[in-house]
């Protein structure tokens, strides 16, 4: 399978099943030292399962994993680490109430003072500066990722796995990360880089293994292939494009925040200060920024989950001051809301889809004199399932049984069918496959064309550029001025995301 020297890590015919679901099937993979090897695939393609097998979190049902030519059995992450495999997780495995050096001390033997010195030395060598004495919960996402990488490097790994490392980073930090990875590559380290972002892989990686539905569909040098070819291998058809709608004349202001502040007394939360924005009828306004800069607080202030924080009058929804109104009162005005957590806030996992519909659509003829009309409820749900292409056996299915993408389509559908005048959507396409994501974006644009005012909070800059008329960037609880998407660049937005304001300014 491989040419030249023995690969550092090789997999042949590796399969993994969960119940009846085949997550990985007959995977062959060879990673050589000094190579940055991409694992490319959509959500649900089996990338995460494959990494769990390599890092010893799961064991394969079939097939052989070999390290330097010798078959090995990786029964635990500790076993993988002993061989020289390190992993940086997508959702970081750091302990927030401990300091950076304490986090390291959990994994690496040695006195904390000596460790702190090594952390600084590694930071200097690979461009990973971080304060060893800082408490992790006070660090930005980029800093936390550096901490994770340093924690791996302290163990001198020969293979470093990074799971979607750029999904949480602003563009400038991505550049820094790539620089770090290239320096590690020069040192002879092998890097497995998991991503679904084609341009990044073309820029960074020298080999790519493409997965679709748990199988390898391509093995190539991404530098020699176009993004279109990669996408076709990844999703099995051509990448669908969102039709960017022509600008409309702006209608009346439907949502207005004028200098809204919110003092958060949760030490893990963010306080907002002086947030001003306006969303007009027939307009999509986007809030860009890295998660954890106040997005949750802003969404809760607008939805009414935090009602007392803003002074009454500072938030105007559909012409009314709503600062002291609760969630239900705001919804009655014609406001609808899709939260970022689908299970627990957007839908109740243990309840059927039909009962979940009732949660927000009760006002649409589903309840008569206090009694639920099961017929109307089922009809509404079936309509939602059909119109929004939700793949499910039927209205009686539990919400928790749906895949992330399907549930998102269902919740979006439910809120859209309320025919809101103002819609707030948080992270519309998190964990949703490309087909469904495109579909969701298309629906948002269609609603805007019908005159709905839409506010989208998202981490995906590309998505925001695709659908929004205007962007704001949220950074440390402060909102930038309105930036029209027609006249700004991704880099300018990226600069706002790290608080630099001007793209020419210094990058921290």
């Amino acid at each position, binding site marked *: 399978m491989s040419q030249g020297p023995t690969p550092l890590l090789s997999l042949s015919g590796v399969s993994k099943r969960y119940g009846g679901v085949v997550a990985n099937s007959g995977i062959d993979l060879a990673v050589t030292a000094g190579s940055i090897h991409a694992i490319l695939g959509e959500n649900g393609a089996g990338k995460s399962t494959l990494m769990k097998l390599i890092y010893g979190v799961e064991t394969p049902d079939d097939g052989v994993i070999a390290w330097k030519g010798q078959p090995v059995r990786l029964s635990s*992450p*500790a076993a993988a680490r002993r061989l020289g495999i390190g992993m940086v997780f997508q959702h970081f495995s750091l*302990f*927030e*109430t401990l300091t950076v050096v304490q986090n390291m001390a*959990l*994994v690496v033997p040695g006195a904390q003072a000596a460790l702190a010195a090594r952390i600084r030395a590694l930071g200097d060598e690979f461009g990973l500066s971080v304060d060893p004495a800082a408490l992790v919960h006070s660090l930005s996402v980029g800093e936390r990722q550096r901490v994770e990488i340093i924690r791996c490097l302290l163990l001198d790994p020969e293979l470093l796995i990074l799971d979607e490392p750029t999904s949480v980073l602003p563009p400038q930090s991505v550049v820094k990360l790539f620089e770090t990875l290239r320096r590690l590559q020069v040192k002879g380290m092998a890097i497995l880089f998991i991503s679904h972002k084609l341009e990044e892989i073309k820029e960074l990686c020298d080999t790519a293994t493409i997965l679709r539905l748990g199988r390898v569909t391509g093995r190539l040098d991404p530098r020699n292939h176009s993004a279109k070819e990669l996408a076709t291998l990844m999703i099995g058809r051509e990448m669908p494009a969102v039709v960017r709608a022509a600008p409309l004349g702006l209608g009346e202001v439907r949502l207005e925040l004028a200098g809204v502040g919110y003092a958060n*007394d949760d030490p893990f939360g963010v306080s907002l200060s002086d947030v001003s924005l306006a969303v007009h009828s027939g307009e999509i306004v986007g809030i860009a920024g890295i998660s954890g800069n106040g997005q949750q607080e802003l969404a809760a202030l607008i939805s009414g989950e935090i009602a007392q924080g803003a002074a009454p009058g500072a938030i105007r929804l559909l012409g009314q001051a709503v600062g002291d109104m609760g969630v239900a009162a705001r919804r009655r005005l014609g406001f609808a809301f899709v939260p970022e957590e689908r299970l627990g806030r957007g839908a109740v996992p243990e309840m059927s889809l039909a009962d979940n519909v009732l949660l927000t659509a009760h006002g649409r003829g589903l309840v008569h004199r206090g009694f639920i009309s099961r017929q109307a409820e089922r009809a509404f749900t079936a309509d939602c399932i059909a119109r929004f292409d939700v793949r499910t056996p039927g209205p009686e299915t539990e919400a928790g049984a749906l895949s992330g993408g399907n549930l998102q389509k269902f919740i979006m559908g439910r809120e859209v069918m309320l025919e809101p005048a103002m819609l707030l959507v948080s992270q519309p396409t998190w964990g949703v496959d490309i087909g469904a994501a495109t579909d969701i974006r298309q629906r948002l644009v269609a609603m805007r064309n019908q005159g709905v005012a839409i506010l989208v909070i998202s981490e995906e800059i590309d998505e925001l550029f695709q659908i929004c008329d205007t962007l704001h960037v949220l950074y440390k609880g402060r909102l930038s001025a309105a930036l029209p998407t027609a006249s700004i660049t991704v880099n300018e937005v990226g600069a706002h995301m790290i608080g630099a304001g001007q793209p020419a300014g210094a990058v921290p």
Partner: protein
Amino acid sequence: MNAVEFILAGMLAAATPMLLAALGEMVTERSGVLNLGIEGMMALGAALGFMVTYSSGSHALGFVVAAAGGAAISMVFAALALGFVANQVVAGLAVGVLASGLSSLLGKPFESQTLIALPKLALPGLAEIPVVGVLFQQDIVVWLTLLLALAIWGVLNHSRLGLIVRAVGENPHAARAVGFSVITIRCAAIAFGGAMAGIAGAYASTVYTPLWADGMIAGRGWIALALVVFGTWQTGRVVFGAFLFGALSLADLTAQAVGASVPSQLLACIPYGVTILMLAVISSNRKRLRLNSIASLGQPFEG
């Protein structure tokens, strides 16, 4: 001896059963496990401690057997809560009831028997101070408990072992990802908590009130649980809360002795109310509370 001296002389010993149990429960909870069976485990420790000390004449042996018994019964809880991933609240209550039942069964032949308590050890110099001096005449278990509290504080905050326990309590999934066995660490923390509850019970039955009577723990296990939560899992606050409770419960006795015109039932409520109020006030800073509280407490973890 006046009222102040009476309270000073007795408050440390009165606090010791609660403090021992609370320190153990604090460690268990720091690892993310809520053990509500403390009351029953104390009762079992009290019965075992009394039986062994009564039969052998050795307090030390009594404490060792009580610790072993507490740890053993806590392993039943560990098997349910960790092995079978049962609801920790229900498992803890069930094992607690089992343990108190066992204590009644074992203690039956010893009903109303008495023992000789441990001698008081005076700290030279300090014990001669007028009025306050009585505070420094305590039995060896009180002194050892204070040293133990200091040791637990040191281990939790300044050692690798403590870091591991805290890490498991904050984020068991991340702890597993970096290579720790969450189940093993939690199991050890439960065993420690059980052993401490056993010792706490033995202190109550062989030293503090050296006699066996069924139901003699009388809610002290529940107070220990409250001390841990209202002390926000901080060693210093738990110690403070225990002493406050000890002093107030003696003050209540003093007030009854001098014939205060307040109904005795009301007086008996005061230590509970005031202790919880004090700790709640100390811990009322929401920021600190959020930082101190244990993120995974009571949540089942499948390893």
